[in-house]
């Protein structure tokens, strides 16, 4: 499973909990200062460090950070947070009329810099959770993310582990200056470009054409970005997304759709595309056999670069 959730009901907590809250609140502890007759009052336990606000986003406020309900810490219960939101939400239908639907939403922890990312949400798309005699439905959203739906007002208590994608929200991402060297055929004035998270996947940064010590054509570029971000090569000033470097899975000879290269600690990145071709290159590259397009393979889910029979990972480190 791509995303790992642990979203556990209080009733089942002893069997399935990952973390162990020192003390679990009761419905009485939670409802004391909240209106559980017309609102959903949700107590959530975060088993990771909370470095910034936690918020509740949902259909009551348009699923945006703006207007999200900020959680309050529950006095006397370390790691527990309370959200309160209306149990019934007026929602616009496709034809512009409105209907009343049940509250749907999810808790999300903000990143250290206060920004909002769906990476740090809670939920388990495959489970039903029964709590205190009431059921909250956990349903998969359109892209597989988990939403929670509450059928009625009341107090709901969850112990949950929030989902972590890569960097914990409490850890500041490391930035490096990355140097990319692309071994690729020369083709007149044509230059490839790099696009990626560092430039919001918009107009690429054209690479500089050069020669290495052996006289092979190389293209180089440098940029600064955070670890775990990604980039790829594309033909410069080209709006057609099909004109990006296509990587092939050598084993089954199928193209690996939209391969991104993920940034890590190694900052000197070398990619061998010397047997590749450029779709837009106007000068024919005669010495490249038509069927030799790929020099990269996907092995165990990783991109492996082949150069002179030696395998490198995308960060330039020799694999074997």
């Amino acid at each position, binding site marked *: 499973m791509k995303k790992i959730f642990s979203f556990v009901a209080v009733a089942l907590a002893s069997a399935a909990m990952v973390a162990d809250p020192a003390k679990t609140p009761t419905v009485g502890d939670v409802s004391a200062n909240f209106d559980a007759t017309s609102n959903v009052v949700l107590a959530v336990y975060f088993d990771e460090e909370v470095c910034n606000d936690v918020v509740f986003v949902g259909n009551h406020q*348009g*699923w945006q950070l703006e207007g999200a309900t900020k959680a309050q810490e529950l006095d006397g219960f370390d790691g527990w947070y309370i959200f309160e939101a209306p149990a019934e939400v*007026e*929602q*616009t*239908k*496709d*034809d*512009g*009329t*409105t209907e009343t639907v049940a509250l749907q939403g999810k808790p999300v922890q903000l990143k250290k810099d206060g920004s909002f990312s769906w990476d740090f949400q809670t939920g388990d798309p495959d489970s039903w959770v029964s709590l205190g005699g009431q059921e909250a439905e956990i349903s998969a959203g*359109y892209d597989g993310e988990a939403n929670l739906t509450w059928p009625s007002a009341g107090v709901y208590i969850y112990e949950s582990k929030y989902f972590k994608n890569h960097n914990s929200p409490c850890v500041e991402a490391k930035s490096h200056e990355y140097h990319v060297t692309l071994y690729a055929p020369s083709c007149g004035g044509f230059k490839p470009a790099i696009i990626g998270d560092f430039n*919001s*996947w*918009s*107009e690429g940064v054209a690479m500089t054409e050069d020669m290495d010590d052996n006289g092979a054509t190389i293209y180089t570029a440098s940029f600064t970005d955070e670890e775990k971000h990604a980039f790829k090569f594309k033909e410069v*000033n080209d*709006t057609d*997304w099909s004109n990006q470097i296509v990587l092939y899975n050598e084993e089954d000879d199928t193209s690996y759709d939209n391969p991104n290269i993920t940034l890590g600690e190694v900052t000197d990145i070398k990619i061998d595309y010397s047997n590749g071709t450029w779709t837009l290159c106007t000068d024919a590259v005669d010495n490249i056999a038509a069927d030799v397009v790929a020099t990269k393979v996907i092995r165990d889910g990783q991109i492996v670069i082949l150069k002179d029979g030696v395998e490198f990972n995308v960060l330039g480190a020799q694999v074997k």
Partner: protein
Amino acid sequence: MKNNKIFLVASLFAACVLSSCSLDREPQDTYTKTQFDQDAVFAKIYATFGTTGQKGPDGSGDVDGIDEGTSSFYRMFWELNEFCTDDGWWIWNDVGLAEIRTQEWTKSNALVRGLYSRLYFDITLCNHFLDKTREATDEKTLKQIAEVRMIRAINYYYLVDMFCGGPMCLTVDPDNPMPATRSEMYRWLLYECKDLCGDDNDINADTEKEFKAKFPAHVIRPYGNNLPDSRENMYRVDRSVAWFILMRLYLNQPIYASDSPDKQIAPGSCYNSAAWYASRVIKESGRKLLTGDAANYVDGATNADDVATYSAYQKLFMGDNNSNGAQDEALLMIYQDANYCQSWGGARFVINAMRDANMMPNGSSDSWSCFRTSPELITLFFTKSDAEATMAHEYIMPVLAGDDRATFCSEYVKEDGTTSTWSLVGGKAADFNASWADAKWTGIYSTSKNPYVWSSPIGEPAWPDTDLPLFRLAEAYLSYAEAVMQGGNEAQGLTAKECVDAIRSRAHASLNYNLTNSFLLDEWGREFHAEGLRRSVLVRFGQFAGEKADKTWEGHTAGKEAKYNVYPIPETDETANKNLAGLNAAIGY
């Protein structure tokens, strides 16, 4: 001259009496005694887009009680979507104009009455056709019925966009019609367009019953009687026109489904639907963006041959835009012809209004010098200081701007050395030279290699042949990008960025930009200046009126009252139809 005349304009109706859904009622039985000529009425319905009466260019107008020139469908929605915006400044002091320019109009405004009367005249004509053909079962008539319903829907679209509710006329009826709120009209129109393009899953007996209860004249929709899958010719509607209107409806749903001009409803899933219908227009309509080389012009070679290469963008607005490729970008063209289809509210209007005699030839022997740009439009293409230093005519300007859409003139030197310049003073000055001229529209053919030596054709030299692309495919690209930026799901493998790139690539503009909301608002301005769309866009971006509208431009201060997001129902109709009492008051007019 163009040869593809398609309209047989029949002399049928003399006037539209407002305050009812009826045609001329004097004498009372005109409508019942006049023999119904189906094809002639059908042709007349199409002709309402591009003409104002029974003979061209004037003299037997469709709409009584107002100047015939201000009863044109195209000119009226164009003026009321342009004069009050940052696109330009109308110089002449026609009745009612001053208050449109500065957003201070009232319910007695003559231009508002002109638009309103035109829309309801067209709707009534469509209703007349539909009433008379209700029992028909032959294939030809069923096809005509679908097209007429679509044209009625287009007219209703402008009511939904520019007014806040109004009479709901669905049949010819001498009694005063009952009003619909804006949200009711919006919802009816949404289902009407869905039915017309065959997306009728949402429509069922319950919704029809609901409409019937609300609007007794509502005719239960003839499911399955859909528009043609592809167009017969560029002047006729097909299924993609319904998709296009659905795209606009969904993109603007937060505004259109609200009955208050100061409140937008929560968007729900409307941006998914907007992106979906935009993608259908882009991928399935059979239309394509006209592309080609960038504009090029050999300056100074005023008498030489082969001095000009017109950009694809320029060709969209030229005299032969029915055959130079522009016809494939238009979802629907409005027919204009120097000899056979003249109107003071069509091509002649947009071309002559934006030119004066000191500019390059414009494909018409006339020029009115009455609509110039606002400096704010120019700053979408240049920084202010760069603009002040840029002196060029419209065939050089796109090169200097790095954008084919900068079709402006700031300086022109005639062959005899006479130099004319246009400043960027603006400031509401009643001076055609107080800001640059916009030479986007022209009657010159793209086959002309030297626009400088253009000479009037024999016949009707003042009347251009330029057709009016009422809806352009480019709008679907920008709408798609906007819908996705607003949170809509991507559809059919398109991304927001590649849609904007497609528009900018065609204009040979830089692809190095950050796709933000404010960029997109500006991009709408660059692509669609002087096409009668700007007010709608500014309203949708919350920048036209209301407390949060902080944008300013020539003649416009920030924070205009929210009621100016819509136009009022004309006082004359409000007085005549008691059913409309209170509608204007409810929104502050």
